[in-house]
């Protein structure tokens, strides 16, 4: 099974997107949707960012204008679940991704039935109110509860994208190997196994050569069981490393243009 790249670029934290959201200017958003589609994104993340005056309205509008220019499903990225629901309604078809839900009962009860209703997947975080655990076992315990919740609310386990949460290596270095171990174990929790995902760029926050750290860690994580990540799909060397790791794990049949084929999905 191929590795899913979730394109991170449509996020109000980026200046061009933030301005576009504030002015309801579709062009920069649609341009990035097309660009990320061509680069091989399997999902396009949509985060309205902090500048949006009305998150619900912005989410709805952005989901709509992105759907106009690409068939790639959208990952609706928000902590405001009403805004996510508005996005799901605007998309109007199954296959979207809800990004994200932690292992907290009240949030699970809001998000999981919504995912079942709209046929959406869920990025489920291995954390609760007490924060992100350090060791792999505690991450896996959260994952198990999230898998049980999926079963409880009628969400197929392979619609679940469990994110064991990576932290910047320069401030929280012990997390990196723990996340790898958590990935290995999450893949054995149930059958079909849940998907796994990471907000990959987080690992390299504050390091001088972010691309190097990102692509090294993504290959290590793919080897441990990572099958999707929110990444910069415009980082060619990283996408090439992902395509190669995917091929070397025998997830795709080798051919001379395997990198190109990977990008074409």
């Amino acid at each position, binding site marked *: *099974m*191929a590795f899913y790249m979730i394109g991170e670029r449509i996020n109000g934290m980026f200046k061009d997107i933030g301005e576009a959201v504030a002015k309801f200017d579709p062009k920069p958003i649609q341009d990035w949707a097309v660009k990320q589609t061509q680069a091989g994104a399997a999902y396009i993340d949509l985060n309205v960012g902090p500048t949006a005056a009305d998150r619900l309205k912005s989410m709805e509008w952005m989901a709509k204008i992105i759907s106009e220019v690409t068939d790639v499903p959208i990952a609706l990225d928000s902590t405001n679940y009403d805004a996510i629901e508005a996005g799901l309604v605007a998309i109007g078809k199954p296959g979207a991704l809800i990004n994200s839900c932690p292992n907290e009962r009240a949030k699970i009860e809001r998000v999981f039935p919504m995912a079942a209703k709209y046929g959406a997947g869920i990025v489920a975080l291995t954390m609760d109110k007490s924060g992100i655990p350090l060791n792999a076992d505690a991450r896996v315990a959260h994952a198990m509860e999230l898998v049980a919740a999926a079963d409880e609310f009628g969400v197929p386990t392979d619609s679940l994208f469990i994110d064991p949460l990576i932290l910047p290596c320069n401030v929280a270095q012990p997390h990196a190997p723990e996340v790898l171990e958590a990935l290995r174990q999450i893949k054995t929790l149930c059958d*079909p196994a849940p998907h796994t995902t990471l907000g990959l760029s987080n690992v390299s926050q504050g390091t001088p050569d972010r691309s190097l750290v990102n692509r090294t860690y993504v290959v290590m994580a793919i080897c441990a069981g990572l099958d999707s990540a929110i990444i910069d799909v415009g980082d060619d060397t990283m996408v090439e490393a992902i395509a190669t790791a995917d091929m070397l794990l025998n*997830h*795709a*049949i*080798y*051919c*001379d*243009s395997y990198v*190109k*084929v990977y990008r074409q999905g």
Partner: protein
Amino acid sequence: MPVEIYKDKFTGKGQEVILGATKEQGGTRAYTVKLGGSSTLPFLFYEGEIPNRPVIAMEVWDIKPDWSPCFDQYYGDVWNDPAAWAKKAEGYGADVIYLRLKGADPELENSKTPEECAKVVKAVLAATGAPLMVEGPGQPDKDNDVLQAVADAAAGENIALGTAEKDNYRGIAAAAMMGKHCIIGRSPVDINILKQLNIMITEMGVPLDKVINDPLTGGLGYGIEYSYSTMERARWGALIGDKMMTPPVVCLAGPEAWRAKEPNAANEDAGPGWGDQPDRGIMWEAMTAVALLQAGGDLVLMRHPEAVKLVKKHIDTLMVSNKY
């Protein structure tokens, strides 16, 4: 507690390819055949859909072939008349006619010209109602000229043109594209090259629903297990979502089986326990075809009418759903 039997679930499926065109579709064929389209491994009806029955194509040459004399009783009077030969093959149960333009081989004296090949194709189309596949002589330059003429002569008939290989696919792909025909891509039992070839053919603009693959199979006793592994892996690739591995697969069962010594040897030259010719040859071909169907062949090219009968009967039993 009820026992739940494990079933594989696949995300991809084989590409369906239609061969031939009826009058309504702009051709003159009596019917069309659909190849491929399965969403499971061969004949495992309980894990997916198998929408199309495997198809039998029969071999017709444009010159007299050097086949075992045991074929004379079936085709002896038509060796030099491909149209009449094709009509006979249709009578023997061919779903598809597979015309091999061996006579255009530039090494031959009186090698047929592209125009002569086009005439043969027209005559075969006029004599039969079955969809047609046409293979050039296998020499790159001549293949390009011959298949271009054939593509024009068969305009609207949605025939299959073969065979495109890694170093010789552009001309054939162009002819297929212009004439809206199908193309047969072949690789020498090499799945990586096969995938690359499909990429190159589709990049030229041939849609994937016009591509048929020939993974170049071995005959029984001569590397068929290697073909089996290659084909199984190709199907598996298609089922897990590798689009470039989805084209339906054609297997040259007849030609490969009859290339071996065993089916051809006269009784006095046969080894102990080999049995009598021609039954031995018929069984050799039928077993080759059946093994290749089990490996995932969507179309088997066959030669002996009795072997065709046996394999058709066997396909009937294989196509009874074993769903539970």
